[in-house]
């Protein structure tokens, strides 16, 4: 383990931990949230929800389908027919700015706050 190795490990650790720290400190949980859905780089749908909304719906495109579930102010992709199922493994998102990405289906699901 030479000297530059330690510098590299240190740089990666400090960079990633500081980004995570910045996120954790600036996470705000709003009551009224908007779920933005982008399919194929285009804005597809916008859904308002709060801590009491409970919804399950499907987003279908010619690349496949994803089932999105909104429960107690949190969003997750509960099922999908994509190949790697990475979008399901991410689990719940709830804070403003968080997002789930389904790369094979070119789909992005993003939570932002309701300013209107």
């Amino acid at each position, binding site marked *: 383990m030479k000297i*530059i190795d330690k510098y590299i490990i240190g740089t*990666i650790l400090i960079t990633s931990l500081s980004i995570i720290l910045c996120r954790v400190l600036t996470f705000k949980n709003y009551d009224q949230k908007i779920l933005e859905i982008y399919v194929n780089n285009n804005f597809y749908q916008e859904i308002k929800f709060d801590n009491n909304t409970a919804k399950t719906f499907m987003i279908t495109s010619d690349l496949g389908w994803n089932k999105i579930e909104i429960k107690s102010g949190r969003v997750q992709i509960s099922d999908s027919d994509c190949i790697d199922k990475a979008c399901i*493994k991410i689990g719940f998102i709830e804070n403003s700015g968080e997002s789930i*990405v389904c790369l094979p289906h070119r789909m992005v699901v*993003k939570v932002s706050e309701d300013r209107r």
Partner: protein
Amino acid sequence: MNIKKIFLLCIMAGEASLLFFIESYIPIPGLALSNIIILLALYCYSYWEALIILLLKLIISLIFIRTPSILFCSAVGGLLSLYFMNLFKSSFKENISMIGVSLVGSTFQNIGGIIAAIIILQNLSILFYLPIILLSSLFTGLFIGLAAKLTLKKFLKLNQSSVTH
């Protein structure tokens, strides 16, 4: 460039493709198993042989990779990681070990993958995952570097006649 070396490069390209195929079934983010072969090529030969193996691996992967987005992520990540691996290796020479180069490689492979995903999705949201992927690449880079370091001696012994140094 003798015939034995050409054969060896082709076999290494096949090994890299096989490792790529296997790692598509392992759900760890940022595990670039084919970087083991790239590292071996970088340390036994030079940048150009490693580049040849990388390009051959991408061509062979066309056979079994169904989604073009995964291939694009792997291409961007692989080229970026190879460039920076060579940069760090040649500029730090004695002060960096194989593990450090491997860390650099896995980090830039993942950064390249995220850049490719941003290009595909036309959306910056995926940057949300950058710190987690960076941390994961730290561990996978250490693992890949250790694996390459352990196989280097045996590899050199087996291929003495076709290796430059």
